[in-house]
């Protein structure tokens, strides 16, 4: 019952430090046709379940006073769940698609230097006032300036010049023209709150729930019956912070909560046969992407043959089966599988003979991997990879680091040739933009200046289809010659009381407004 590594605050902090937190992260190649709206969602009745008076959710952290309903301080788990229920955003990634929420359309000018947001009409805040362009201007300016946690998302927005043209239209000038404004900014984080709201002790949004009350452990949300997207099927949501994964499962089994967010893989295995519970698997779309990152700037990985040899020497299925207990899927060296804009790269098969040949050509017999239990299973995966490389004639030495110290020193990360790493799986274009550019603190694969120039060009491409193609070309380049040995997707694992359904997931953040119980 001790905290599992998955639950450890150190890991979560590390995740946060990486800035790749679930839900922080959403976007990719914008396909306008995919920008539908929520009206197409099936109603709860159509799904065959019944509405619920109360749904209690066990989340991995408690929402603090300051965090409750404060979009500037959202970080992980419960804070994101509360934020997503209280506020609507301009755009979201829902069920693997980019969707407009409060925005009705978002259009660039010819060179992508100014973007025009048109708002959906007839939406009101919890206090009955309409959502207007002035509210959007205020929200963007507040989110983009300190002490906002997400100021970096808006770093390229000329905040002072964001303007309300009329009641329903906002223009957003950028400092550098970008074609990917929607997926790289609006989809990532764009909650809207009323103009004049500068502190969030009594948060007002336009979302399906309003914040009713909270204590040190539990946050209570009540349904906004007038919600423009339809009356929520759950009248009251209680988000309960339960730090330990084992305790969350105990609470679910004892009936103290109806849904447990994030359980351990051993817990999922143990409860698979329990007829009272359903284990909810997130699939690759809601997963961590696990990698052994090779820095292309540093020897011996500056030699493309060595990178290719390592990628060919590992048996990815064996890694997933053993290190992840089979609760995941194999990856093919590029982030973004099951999400918009993925280039659908061919599965990378093991080829020991080719790996041996490449290692011999490059004169490699020994390698060292910096690793640690930064996610559960990473150390086992590292040990297994050492055995697999041995079969290819290479001796792999493991240099184990404690998870709390793993991300402490950016210089160490930048100067180690080979290290265990993980990313939140997000659309490939967003991932490449955030992690492989020259100034990214976690550009541990050391992409070249030429690559970064092509990345900047892709980002600036305004035409949606042309930009999608440019990002696909970058993914192919990364697939062929890049530095990540991305071997597996570790799925988000939740558990629910039998009969609970209709829970949606936005990049590992659960949405309960359309959940239903046993009919």
């Amino acid at each position, binding site marked *: 019952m001790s905290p599992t590594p998955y639950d450890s605050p*150190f890991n*979560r902090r590390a995740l946060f430090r990486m800035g790749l937190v679930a839900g922080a992260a959403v976007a990719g190649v914008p396909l306008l046709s995919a920008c539908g709206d929520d009206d197409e969602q099936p109603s709860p009745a159509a799904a065959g379940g019944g509405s619920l008076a109360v749904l209690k959710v066990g989340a991995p952290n408690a929402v*603090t006073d300051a965090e409750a309903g404060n979009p500037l301080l959202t970080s992980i788990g419960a804070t994101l769940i509360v934020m997503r229920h209280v506020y609507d955003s301009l755009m979201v990634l829902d069920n693997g698609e980019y969707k407009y929420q409060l925005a009705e359309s978002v259009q660039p000018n010819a060179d992508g230097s100014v973007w025009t947001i048109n708002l959906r009409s007839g939406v009101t805040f919890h206090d009955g006032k309409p959502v207007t362009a002035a509210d959007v201007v205020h929200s963007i300016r507040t989110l983009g300036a300190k002490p906002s946690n997400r100021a970096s998302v808006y770093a390229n927005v000329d905040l002072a010049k964001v303007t309300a043209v009329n009641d329903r239209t906002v223009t957003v000038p950028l400092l550098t023209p970008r074609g990917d404004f929607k997926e790289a900014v609006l989809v990532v984080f764009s909650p809207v709150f009323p103009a004049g709201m500068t502190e969030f002790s009594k948060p007002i949004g336009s979302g399906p729930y309003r914040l009713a009350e909270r204590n040190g452990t539990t946050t209570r949300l009540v349904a906004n019956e007038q919600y423009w997207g339809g009356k929520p099927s759950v009248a009251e949501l209680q988000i309960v912070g339960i730090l*330990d994964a084992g305790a969350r499962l105990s609470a679910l089994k*004892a009936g103290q909560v109806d849904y447990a967010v994030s359980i351990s893989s051993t817990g999922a295995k143990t409860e698979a046969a329990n007829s009272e519970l359903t284990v909810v698997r997130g699939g690759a779309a809601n997963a961590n992407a696990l990698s052994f990152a090779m820095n292309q700037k540093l020897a011996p990985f500056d030699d493309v043959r060595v990178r290719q040899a390592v990628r060919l020497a590992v048996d990815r299925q064996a890694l997933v089966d053993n290190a992840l207990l089979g609760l995941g899927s194999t990856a093919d060296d590029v982030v973004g599988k099951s999400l918009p804009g993925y280039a659908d790269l061919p599965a990378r098969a093991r080829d020991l003979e080719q790996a041996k040949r490449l290692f011999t050509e490059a004169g490699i017999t020994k390698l060292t991997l910096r690793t640690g239990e930064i996610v559960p299973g990473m150390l086992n995966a590292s040990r297994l990879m050492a055995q697999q490389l041995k079969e290819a004639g290479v001796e792999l030495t493991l240099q184990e680091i404690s998870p709390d110290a793993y991300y402490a020193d950016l210089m160490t990360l930048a100067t180690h040739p080979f290290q265990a790493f993980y990313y939140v799986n997000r659309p490939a274009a967003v991932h490449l933009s955030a992690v492989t550019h020259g100034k990214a*603190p976690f550009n541990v694969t050391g992409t070249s200046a030429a690559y970064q120039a092509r990345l900047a060009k892709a980002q600036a491409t305004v035409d949606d289809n042309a930009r999608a193609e440019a990002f696909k070309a970058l993914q192919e380049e990364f697939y062929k010659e890049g530095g990540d040995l991305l071997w597996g997707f570790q799925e988000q694992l939740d558990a629910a009381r039998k009969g609970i359904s209709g829970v949606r997931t936005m990049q590992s953040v659960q949405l309960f407004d359309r959940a239903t119980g046993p009919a």
Partner: protein
Amino acid sequence: MTALGFLARRLLATVATLFAVAVVLFAGSEVLPGDAASASLGPDATIEEVAQRRAELGVDRPWPVRFVEWGTAALRLDLGTSTSMHRPVVDVVAEPLAATGLLVGLTAAVTVPLAMGLGLLTGLRPGGRVDRVVSAVAVVAVSIPQFVTAGLLVLVFADLWPLLPAISLPPLGGGPLDRPEILVLPVAALTLFGAAWASRIVRATVIDADAMPHVEAARLAGLPERVVVARHLLPAAAPPCAQTFAWLLSGLFGGTTVVEVVFNYPGLSQTLVAAVRNHDTAVLEGVGLLLAAIILVSFVVADLLVLAVDPRLRVAAR
């Protein structure tokens, strides 16, 4: 030396110890990897942004300057501002500290009489049947890790035989006392260990005191056993017992963390976990300093109790 002088000396020693604790706490959080700046900046911050935030938080200044600032503020009971919650540390920790205090207090209220009773029962008849049974149980209870004990209690009393809640959720708008059943399993888990441990020490103390000449003399004079124990044996055994219970209290304040995590009890452990997650050193240092102060004061109180109970020390103190 007067009793007042004794007290003054003890207080002085306490202050010195507290200073040493403060130095260790401050040094400890200095060498912790990572910092509040990168923790608070979040997604996709660049190295330049982190450096700028460090300057804003003032953590880029030399440590002696920051230590003196922090230390002098702490003297005014100002423990600084939480970098993650943007509130004074004192406000942040007040409620969880009270919840943990309640857990510790209830555990002590059950453990102290239980340990005294068991210690007397076994210590007065060492080697007897009762002693052998109680000692065997106590040794087992002390050697099982607390998270295992707590997990077993959940398994038995919440899962197999659903009498009590598996986790300790206070009602909305209320504290643990508004739903007292949530306190039962955490207190039981802590008591099992605490009573087993303390009763062993009380037992040894009672055996020692029982062998003292004045106790033997009282018995030979034909005083009833009840009077021998109450008037002669207990006062002799009291000083080590008081010290033992002061140790117990300090152990409980540290040891509740594990039990709080298993039961998700709304005490200091949750505050500490959140503080570690956000690299909120102000909260970590503040909680550490407060706990150290509480523990040190409990030792002073134990000393005073001993002084009140044991006539020999009062004479010596004069």
